[in-house]
């Protein structure tokens, strides 16, 4: 475990993250704002605004590092993968760490979402 400033989640957020239970049968959702997949068991109810932003960083990092996402040129994937590495170093039990490899159906869904003409409307 690193120093306090290295911690991705602290206090109540940390408790909420650690209380999540991995549910392998769940299907992913697609985030149109940030182009990643996420699963319902990866987001605890009651997480703070800062905690939610860290989760978004983790989802982006996973998409870049493991799911084949290419970010727009103006963004540096390391911004997000650094958070991922800190989360691993913190020893979190986050269910999202169980989903590094996508199954065929999820891969197909992710590609379909990335190709959508208009993901918002």
């Amino acid at each position: 475990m690193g120093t306090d400033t290295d911690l991705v989640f602290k206090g109540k957020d940390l408790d909420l993250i650690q209380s999540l239970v991995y549910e392998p049968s769940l299907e992913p959702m697609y985030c149109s704002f940030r182009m990643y997949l996420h699963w319902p068991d990866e987001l605890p109810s009651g997480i703070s605004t800062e905690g939610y932003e860290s989760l978004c960083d983790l989802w982006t990092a996973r998409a870049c590092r493991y799911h084949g996402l290419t970010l727009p040129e103006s963004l540096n994937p390391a911004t997000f993968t650094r958070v991922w590495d800190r989360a691993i170093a913190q020893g979190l039990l986050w269910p999202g760490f169980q989903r590094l490899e996508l199954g065929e159906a999820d891969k197909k869904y992710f590609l379909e979402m990335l190709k959508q003409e208009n993901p918002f409307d």
Partner: protein
Amino acid sequence: MTVENLGGLAVGFGADRLAKSVKITEALETLGTEASAMGSGVREKASKLISRMADELMPQSMGVTPDGRLIPIKTDAGKIDDFAAKMVGRSGEYVPEHKPMFLAPGPNKVLSKREMEAFGGLKKLEAMSDGELASIGLRRYEMSKLRLESDEFSLQAKVPGDHRAWFRASVSKDGTLVLTDLSKGAMPDGTGAYFLAEALKAHNLKPTGKIFLKNIREKETLPALAAGVSPEHTKIGRCVTKGLKELGLTPTAFKLVETDRGIDIIIELR
């Protein structure tokens, strides 16, 4: 006034301070702050209690923000309960307002206004029976009811049976609505803006002043903005504008804030 029993959790709610007749605003703020950290049921109850107390005791109408701050509000008829409900979000089911929408065969997409014109216009289509619509290859589309959820930090809307449809927003400390997620799931193309509008309506959230779109990293939006496309002409800008117009709101300016995590789009409203 007596201090009410908040489901057996009144202790530690600042209720003792009220009993000792400390400054009312201070006590209600304490009550709000402590309530904001509790479960949604307790928060809702506390919110109603605070609103009612403020109504009875304050010369000026007061409301409670999601982070427990007591703030003065302008009201026409002192509808503090409405305001409190607006700020803390809602839970339960919501039936979207009826909006005539029509699906054409082929792609999962509702007809745009222009496409409806090709069939004689909205009024004509609306007056047609299902059989008449089928004879020209169309059918009605009705958005399903929404399931609303809220916690201390977020307001959400989901569509039962479509787990990929999701709206999530929060209200920042200065009262700005922050839209963090909008996914239309399996709903037809062309319904995202309507989903946004209905989710906002469902939570009684009518943004005033501005709305924040947080950490946008979408692959077309960022390059388009970098190439000088104005935010209102990006797909996300058009979608949110369309949704806001459903609520009778008109964006007056779009501002961008670039960060290492993407772009925040700030939409100012009239």
